[in-house]
Every structure is written in structure tokens, then in C-alpha cells.
């Protein structure tokens, strides 16, 4: 029986010829990730092991990004705790404010994760690196602790769903609309346990930033991981960012998929997830009349350079609506500088938007843009659960950067196609 991309990567890291769905294995990991919320718990578990050394100082990344720069005393204490641990363990990839970015944008950019890797992270959106053709998944703090100690993690080999992408997305459609469309179609547990494998000729019409944004939200469909077939664009990205050894795995022709979907990219419209689940999607033309108070453009889903460019494309020569606060979060220092050098910041500031230092900030209701009771935000983030961005009676609408920027201008949920020419 043939194997899928995910199954092949897992087999190779478990030292096995082959694996099949449902099998439990112990696999070597190439990177263990934690943030300022999950790492403190993992450090406490690590201490119980009674060892004073991590398995590999180079293969652990600790990124204080959620409540950083420290929003209050408690978060400052937590970061201090993990900073000291990182120093003691000589962990090379601890990213201090000034170096730090949102973890899932930062690791690929720094070249710390690459094709064919197995990556675990104590953060559910670790699945993002599947865009590079890696097996990458979110775990708990105990997994992180044991991963730091041994360089291994156990897995149940997942079944797979195949998403065959064909055609080319339309004018105002990006990877985010594609993944929201898919989640709307299969539901928030539509991919439970399974790997979502993205293949097909349509891939060439999706940039790496589109793919990161899609792999990022595999978890919102319940998936264990999302993974993209490696093509020239992936290889070019890897070449630019990473010196790590990588390996390209392709699915066998007779690999088994529990389900196969053909996604016609040209048919996908700008899509928004209405409260309070990511699968509650509506397409352009069906948004209704929803006035908003805030727009957030950023996060591990859509805080990359192309997202900044898309926002600028819409905001150029226009003004943020008087009832709206528009906050833009480039996800890393590098993206920040690039956006600045490309003149995007001038466009944002002209339009009346605020630009923040890299942080998760409001995405998880942390800081830098919390919603009051009854307020509504359009956000390029990934979760719109009750109270996710602030008050339990506030609302989050998920979209891509085009719709978010257009909504900032009109003051209600809008597609860029609705805007007047400038």
C-alpha cells in the first residue's frame, strides 16, 4: 500500500520502511517550539525529568510573542522564567523583543523549519509549516517538555484527505479565502485527526504566503496537519531562507485518501467567517450590512509581506472610516522593515491606520486592540470563538487582507470590489 506525504515523513523519522494510518509510532523531531504561554508549563514538566540538558540546543525554538512586549507583570515574570531557562540550557533560538516575531511567521523566515521536517510546537497553529512540505503539528506542554529532553515525540499516523487545487484565484481572492471556503465546506471537525494534503496544478497560482495562511488554518478544520506538495516556489523559498538540509517527499500514486476534493480556485469568492465558528462562512454578495468598530490586519495567518501589500493596495489613496480603528501588525521584524522600505507604512499612515510592533496582541484577546462589549472586528486572524478578541459579547469576523482593508474604508464588512475608484 502506498503512503501519503505525511505518512512518508513520519515513517522516515520513525526509522520504519512504511507506516499505515492508525499506527502509533515514536518519531525523531527536527524542531520543538514553544511560546510565552505554553513554555512555562513545559519547563516545569521538564524539571521533573531530573535532567539538566536539552537534546539539542539548536533544535528548540522559544518565541515570546503572545503577550510581548510584556503587557503586564505576570507576562513579564513568565518571559523572565523562560528566558532564564533558555540561557541555562543554551537554547540558541530564543527570540527576544527586537528579534522576535509571531512564531509561525518567524520560524520559516529564519529557515529553522524546512521540507521533510517533523516539527512539534506547544501551540495549535504549528501546522503552518506544512506549507513547506513539512509534517508539523500542535501538541501539549508535556509533549514539548519531553521533546526538549529526548528529541522525540509519539504520533498516531493520520489518515489523509486530498485537496486537489485547480485553476487560478480571482482578483480579490487569496489563500485565506481558499482555506475559509474549505473550512466552510467540511466544517470545524471535518478533518479531525487527519492530514489535509494540498496538491494539484492550481498550486502554482498560490504564493508561499498564501500557502502559509492555508496550512495555518488546518487546525480550524480539526486537522492534525496540513501539508503542501513541494514545487518550484517552495524550493525557491527554502533556498532564500534556509541552509538546513531538506528532503522532498511526494505521495505514492496508490496512497490512500479517505476523501478527495477538487477545489476550483477560480470559483472561490472573497469569504468571511461570521461569529462564532470558522466554518460559519459567507461569500461576497452575502455579507449583509454589518457595521464594524475595528480592523486587525496581522497574525500568524496573515501578517506576512504579501498581506501587507494587499492591505496597502486597497488602502492606497483611501481613508479608514471615521468609526473604525484599523491596526496593522507586520508579523516579524523583517516583514516590518520590508513593508516600511516598500513605502507601505506611508500608505497606512496616510489612510489613518496604526502600525504595531510584531506581536500576537489582539488575536487571542491579549493586548493592543481588545474589543469592548458589543463591538465588532474584521480580523485577518484565525479564530472567531466567543470572546476571542475581548469582551464575551464582542464579535470577530475572519477574512483575508483585501476584505479587511476594504471594510476599514467603508466601516462595514465589504469586498474591495464595492469600493469606488480612487
Amino acid at each position, binding site marked *: 500500500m502506498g503512503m501519503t506525504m505525511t505518512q512518508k515523513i513520519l515513517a522516515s523519522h520513525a526509522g520504519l520502511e512504511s507506516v499505515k494510518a492508525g499506527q502509533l509510532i515514536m518519531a525523531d523531531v527536527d524542531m520543538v517550539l514553544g511560546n510565552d504561554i505554553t513554555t512555562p508549563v513545559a519547563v516545569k514538566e521538564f524539571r521533573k525529568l531530573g535532567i539538566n540538558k536539552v537534546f539539542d540546543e539548536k533544535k528548540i525554538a522559544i518565541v515570546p510573542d503572545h503577550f510581548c512586549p510584556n503587557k503586564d507583570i505576570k507576562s513579564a515574570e513568565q518571559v523572565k522564567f523562560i528566558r532564564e531557562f533558555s540561557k541555562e540550557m543554551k537554547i540558541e533560538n530564543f527570540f527576544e523583543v527586537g528579534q522576535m516575531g509571531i512564531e509561525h511567521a518567524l520560524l520559516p523566515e529564519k529557515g529553522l523549519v524546512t521540507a521533510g521536517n517533523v516539527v512539534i510546537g506547544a501551540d495549535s497553529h504549528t501546522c503552518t509549516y506544512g506549507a513547506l512540505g513539512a509534517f508539523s503539528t500542535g501538541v501539549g506542554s*508535556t509533549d514539548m517538555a519531553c521533546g526538549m529532553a529526548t528529541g522525540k515525540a509519539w504520533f498516531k499516523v493520520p489518515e489523509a484527505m486530498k485537496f486537489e487545487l485547480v485553476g487560478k484565484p480571482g482578483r480579490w481572492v487569496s489563500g485565506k479565502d481558499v482555506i475559509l471556503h474549505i473550512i466552510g465546506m467540511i466544517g470545524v471537525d471535518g478533518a479531525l485527526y487527519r492530514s489535509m494534503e494540498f496538491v494539484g496544478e492550481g498550486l502554482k497560482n498560490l504564493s508561499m504566503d498564501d500557502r502559509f495562511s492555508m496550512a495555518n488554518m488546518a487546525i480550524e478544520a480539526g486537522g492534525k496537519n496540513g501539508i503542501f506538495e513541494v514545487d518550484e516556489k517552495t524550493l525557491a523559498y527554502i533556498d532564500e531562507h534556509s541552509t538546513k538540509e531538506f528532503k522532498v517527499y511526494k505521495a505514492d500514486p496508490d496512497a490512500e485518501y479517505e476523501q478527495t476534493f477538487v477545489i476550483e480556485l477560480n470559483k472561490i469568492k472573497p469569504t468571511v467567517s461570521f461569529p462564532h465558528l470558522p466554518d460559519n462562512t459567507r461569500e461576497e454578495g452575502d455579507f449583509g450590512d454589518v457595521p464594524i468598530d475595528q480592523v486587525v490586519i496581522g497574525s500568524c495567518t496573515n501578517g506576512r509581506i504579501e498581506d501587507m501589500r494587499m492591505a496597502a493596495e486597497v488602502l492606497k489613496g483611501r481613508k479608514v472610516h471615521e468609526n473604525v480603528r484599523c491596526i496593522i501588525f507586520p508579523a516579524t521584524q523583517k516583514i516590518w522593515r520590508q513593508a516600511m522600505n516598500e513605502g507601505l507604512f506611508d500608505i497606512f499612515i496616510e489612510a489613518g491606520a496604526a502600525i504595531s510592533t510584531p506581536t500576537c496582541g489582539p488575536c487571542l484577546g491579549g493586548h493592543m486592540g481588545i474589543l469592548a462589549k458589543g463591538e465588532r472586528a474584521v480580523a485577518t486572524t484565525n479564530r472567531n470563538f466567543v470572546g476571542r478578541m475581548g469582551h464575551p459579547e464582542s464579535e470577530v469576523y475572519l477574512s483575508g487582507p483585501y476584505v479587511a482593508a476594504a471594510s476599514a474604508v467603508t466601516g462595514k464588512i465589504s469586498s474591495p470590489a464595492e469600493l469606488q475608484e480612487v
Partner: protein
Amino acid sequence: MIAKGKAIKYGDNVDTDVIIPARYLNSSEPAELAAHCMEDIDADFVNKVEQGDIIVAARNFGCGSSREHAPIAIKASGVSCVIAKTFARIFYRNAINIGLPILECPELFEETEEGDRLEVDFDTGTINNITRNKVFKTHPFPTFMQEIIANDGLVGYIKKTI
């Protein structure tokens, strides 16, 4: 390894918030968590649960947050095993990692009533409903998974192997 006890039954989508409500997460003490286990779905759980009991549930058990407090609370309340049609994946991991055995068996739910006596053999993956005299087969854990459980979780297991 054998688990033995009476069945305590729940339906679909038992989420981590009902297993251990967020208001009790200011503690990670197992005994304290156990005192509030299942409180929001079954206030009587803490009274009826006895050492060795087995939770039998339907689909997507443990969905919601990644809090490890949820399997910790169940384990500390004396439950020897959870058997469901399916589990949410982070709960599944966390349960094994803290040493709470869990098994997937789609058929058991329909064939079991609350209070039935169950016996589970983890080595063979056999579940026996003694009350109804019915045997179900599921995948046995591979050796290392059994060892994780036997060592009270991943930390205990790793500690022994390093």
C-alpha cells in the same frame, strides 16, 4: 494491563470546559481538579465514580482547549480508562501523556448501558462487557504506549528510559 469497573456514559462532543471548567484552572493539583470533574455536565459524577470506573462516550470526546487539566481531573477521580467513538486529537495526546488510558471503539457505545461492568485488556485491545456478555476488539497499544501508561505518563516513561 487490565482495567475493570462500571461504565459511566456520556454522549457526543464532551468538551474540556465541562470536563474541568476554566474557573478551577487556578489549580493544577490533581485532587482539587478531580473534585470538580464533569461538574457542568454531570454534577453527580464525583459521587458515583469509584476507583477503576470506565467512561464510555460517543464522538469527539475532549474537544475544545488543549488544557492538560482535563485528562488530569479524570484520572485523579479514579477513572481507569475512557472509551469513546472518537477523541479530539489534542485531548488524545494529553491523556496518553499524563498516563490516562483511552481507547477508541465505535461499537461499544451502542452496546453498553450506564452501570454495566466492563473489563479492558490493554495488551490485546479487548473490551469485555461482562454484564451483557459481549466482547469487542480494538487496536491494542504498541509496547511503548503501554509503557507510557504503565509509567504514569510520558514524563515518567522518559525518566526511566533516559
